[in-house]
């Protein structure tokens, strides 16, 4: 464990929690750092929606296969178990979990993961979600890393309740739903940008994220403005293309078999 990196990360995370705090961007930073700090391949944060679903709010990668693994846990998997019990759930070798989670274990193996862990996001007696960690190689999770992972999950919980006092469950539920709706806006904006520029969802997400930072806007606000047409993002797309090898902004690929332009 890199102690220097760890303390830098916590300083960075607490520095972010100031006025104009962007909870979605913050949670993305947190999942990114989790991958590095905890030596895992992928990380995601799932929140428990009062509607009765677990929904992903941030992930270290926007790859569809990973998002699918989060969604699948509405039916079965470590996050669902973690959410129900309030306890960490670990599978050091997914090959041995075919009985415990038949669909989830198979899908996770197919996505290239061999071990998984879910750490609870707890607020007093209530579990509001989980930090989900995936590793490509089987084996036990280092107990020291598990403690740090739990600390990161705790920070994520606090960040969701940052803006006002957490006396009321009202406030928690308001924040939670707002965060979940923000995630939907971002998905919609990813689709629009991906289609416009002929790029994939991961590229679209990082472009949106850097555009929001450049403008000092919350990610969801930037995404909303892009969808509403008040923020065209043309400059960002061009800058991005220049950085790409052979970089030109290309329109969406258009196979000749399509019925008409």
């Amino acid at each position, binding site marked *: 464990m890199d102690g220097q990196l760890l303390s830098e990360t916590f300083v960075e995370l607490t520095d972010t929690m100031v006025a104009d705090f962007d909870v979605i961007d913050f949670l993305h930073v947190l999942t990114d750092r989790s991958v590095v700090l905890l030596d895992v391949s992928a990380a995601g944060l799932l929140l428990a*929606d*009062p509607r*009765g679903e677990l929904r992903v709010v941030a992930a270290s990668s926007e790859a569809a296969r990973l998002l699918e693994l989060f969604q699948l846990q509405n039916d079965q998997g470590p996050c669902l178990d973690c959410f129900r019990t309030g306890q960490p759930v670990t599978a050091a070798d997914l090959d041995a979990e075919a009985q415990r989670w038949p669909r989830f274990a198979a899908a996770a193996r197919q996505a290239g993961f061999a071990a998984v862990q879910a750490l609870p996001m707890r607020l007093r007696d209530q579990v509001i979600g989980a930090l989900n960690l995936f590793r490509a190689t089987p084996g036990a999770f280092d107990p020291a890393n598990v403690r740090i992972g739990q600390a990161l999950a705790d920070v994520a919980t606090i960040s969701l309740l940052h803006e006002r006092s957490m006396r009321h469950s009202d406030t928690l539920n308001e*924040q939670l739903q707002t965060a979940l*709706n923000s995630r939907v806006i971002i998905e*919609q904006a990813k689709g*629009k940008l991906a*289609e416009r520029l002929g790029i994939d969802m991961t590229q679209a997400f990082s472009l949106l994220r850097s555009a929001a930072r450049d403008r000092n806007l919350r990610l969801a606000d930037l995404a909303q403005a892009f969808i509403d047409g008040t923020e065209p993002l043309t400059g960002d797309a061009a800058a991005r293309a220049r950085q790409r090898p052979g970089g030109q902004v290309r329109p969406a690929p258009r196979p000749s078999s*399509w019925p008409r332009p």
Partner: protein
Amino acid sequence: MTVSRAGRIWGLIAVQAARRDGNVSAADACAAAVAAVSVTGGWLSAAGDGDAVHLIWIADVASDQLAELQLTLGEGPSLDASASGGPVLASDLGTAEAARRWPAFTPAACQAGAGAIFAFPLRIGAIRAGVLGMYRTQPGPLSTSQLGDALVFADTATLLLLDAPGQAAGGSGAGAGPGGQPADLALHRAEIDQATGMLTEQLGTGIADAFIRLRAYAYVNDLRLTDVARDIVARRLRLYPDPGPSQDGEV
């Protein structure tokens, strides 16, 4: 668990519509919601052009007053819910916090008989359809299960508002009734949101119309919404602007 909740709620809305002897509407969803989550009354406002809102349903006189007060005073839970994209749950209007949050509205709302107000934005990401407001004469929070139900009622009202004739072109018949795909929609899928965003570009429409077209395509072709969305995201399927579905097709 989600599917059964969505199914139960669609059932309650259908019963409400049958009692009224009409087609299922967003107002039925709101009336059924008020009964199911044990609040005193409620109101439904639909988003118009720009910041305009239209009050399209009220449960009682006090609901009307509470909705109108917010429009007149320019502050209140409905407006905050609309702005933030998340619900506003003011379970006790007698607190100092409520008075700080809405200095003009809070005393007026108490005067009108409200002890608690809950406002749910009718939104799917960037799509804004309106706000469902509820009030209780007595203060007190919604229980977890009441909140869960209220959110699903609000989701349903959102779909019904988007599908209402005149709300947007091509919206009618896109699976609005219980024969549509409520269970599919209740379970959230990132692909549906991504496909909706992609369709704004393919169709050259706003986000609400793109979503309506996506659902209409699934409905007309008897496909699951998630499968259609997945095909669009994978760029196996593309939709075209009007004259429409005859030209939509596989890539």
